[in-house]
């Protein structure tokens, strides 16, 4: 025991402190309506969600509950109908001027906002005319203006990280589903995102390939990446998640720590869901 007072090695400027405490994602009363008039479908009905920096949030829920839509709203693939979403303190898709008037952002600015958020899709969506390496290099070169050499070096690092260094020159069609999804994760990581969104990343995979993708995601979570994962893998939620959210019919029905939510569900709809999934 030394007598010196414990000094935390954290930045102490007010701005940095505020930023560190501020959630990475802050969704407030988010509504999403598809279509209009009689055909309108109210998919999100006032969702509030906070995702802390460096945490893993798993979103559970039956199909049609709005989990994927919520994810797609976070990176502006869908325009929200009402409410607000902040990522890293920035209002997504809009700008509020001094008089409080809301302006839609120019697509170029939205593209820039998106470039800081990585997304992994259920069906991978790798570019089939490009090799695994070219898939990972594409955005750093085209969006961030890295030289080909730099991008290539970094892409090989990332492919190595997901265990696919020897598959760099293969086209997606020559890879298994699990390998394709790992390339897709490397492709998203190549943009150095501060937030990663996973939209049912293992739902399109053969059962024996699910494990390799979950392992990569678990590794990523350990490295401190902020992640929102929509999945049906309860085991992954239990082991990796810091926060579990259960959605049904466009609202968040129950949320909390995985142990509380998964083992002692209070909401009958969640009890019913877990009984079916487990």
């Amino acid at each position, binding site marked *: 025991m030394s007598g010196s007072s414990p000094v935390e090695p954290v930045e102490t400027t007010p701005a940095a402190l505020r930023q560190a405490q501020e959630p990475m994602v802050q969704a407030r009363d988010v509504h999403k309506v598809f279509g209009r008039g009689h055909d309108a479908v109210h998919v999100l009905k006032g969702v509030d969600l906070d995702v802390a920096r460096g945490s893993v949030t798993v979103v559970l829920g039956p199909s049609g509950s709005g989990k994927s839509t919520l994810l797609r709203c976070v*990176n502006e*693939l869908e325009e929200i109908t009402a409410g607000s979403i902040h990522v890293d303190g920035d209002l997504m898709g809009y700008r509020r001027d001094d008089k409080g008037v809301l302006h839609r952002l120019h*697509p*170029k600015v939205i*593209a*820039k906002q*998106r*470039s*800081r*958020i*990585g*997304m992994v*899709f259920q*069906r991978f*969506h*790798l*570019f*089939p*005319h*490009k*090799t695994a390496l070219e898939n990972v290099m*594409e*955005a750093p070169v*085209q*969006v961030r203006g890295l030289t080909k050499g730099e991008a290539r070096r970094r892409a090989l690092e990332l492919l190595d990280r997901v265990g696919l260094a020897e598959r760099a*020159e*293969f*086209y*997606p*069609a*020559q890879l298994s*589903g699990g390998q*394709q999804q790992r390339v*897709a994760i490397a*492709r*998203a990581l190549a*943009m150095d995102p501060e937030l990663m969104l996973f939209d049912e990343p293992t*739902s*399109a995979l053969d059962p024996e390939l699910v494990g390799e993708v979950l392992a990569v995601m678990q590794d990523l979570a350990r490295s401190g990446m902020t992640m929102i994962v929509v999945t049906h893998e309860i085991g992954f939620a239990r082991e990796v998640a810091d926060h579990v959210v259960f959605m049904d019919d466009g609202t968040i029905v129950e949320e909390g720590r995985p142990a509380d939510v998964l083992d002692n569900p209070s909401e009958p709809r969640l009890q019913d869901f877990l009984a079916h999934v487990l």
Partner: protein
Amino acid sequence: MEDRPSGQLPEPLHARPVPRPGRWVSAVVVLVLVAMAVNALVTNPNFRWDTVWLYLRDVVVVRGVGWTLVLTFGSMALAIVLAVMLAVMRRSDNPVMRGVSWFWIWFFRGTPIYTQLVFWGLLSVLYPRLSLGIPFGPEFWTFTTQDVITAFWAALLGLALNESAYLAEIVRAGLSSVDPGQAEAAKALGMKDGKILRRIVLPQAMRVIVPPTGNETISMLKTTSLVLAVPFTLELTYATNAIGNRIFQPIPLLIVAALWYLLITSVLMIGQHYLERYYGRGFDGGRTGGGRGPRGGRRKPRKQDLIGASGTTKDDPFLEVTP
């Protein structure tokens, strides 16, 4: 992960093939018919094969081939550029752009190419003077239409604008054929619309666009003979017709033109084959990847490639997914 066969390979089955007498019968029938046709062509003196051979290499005819090629490739190149623009406009959010594209396609597909070419030829009569300046205001540059839109340019523009309307629909079909997830994935990476189109969507659309465009190119080769409507008189059909009429032997000269068209079409088909192979890379498990496969040298075909190559299975990873 090596797929090298382990241990002794089994002796393949030795079975007698299914007898196929139909093949032998049809081969003999076709052979006889071909022999008859060749005999009928070669021995008929009315075809004047000596004249055909003489004019096949005539300087006016070869120059006509040259002009036909210039018109074909020039108008197709211009038409492809216009068609991509039209197809993108047609899919744009901007209602003005959509309207312009719709009107263009409606007009140029809806009127006969022959009439269009006549009007291009008449342009210098209808508008003897063209000028650049502020609309309804002062003019800065003025020139005589005849000096700028010569018969050649009238023919080229006429063919290109007409073709662009057809190609625009082909390009549009190609763009629509690309999985929307591709553009979405590119969007999620922060790519802007222009880049997404050029780097992600268009290269994949080419797989669908190239075959019908090859078809259109071959069709254009023959359509160039209509430029006599302008009139532009140096291309192959007009040149051979003129000679045929002059020497009172139209039939051999028609054969001369037909042989040249056949030859050029054959070359175009070979080119199309390689273009299709190039844009097919990455699809079809890399089997058609222009011989590139995974880059960096030859490799052993992988197990899945061999299974796929047998053509008895479908290796679409999404076939078993219920969305």
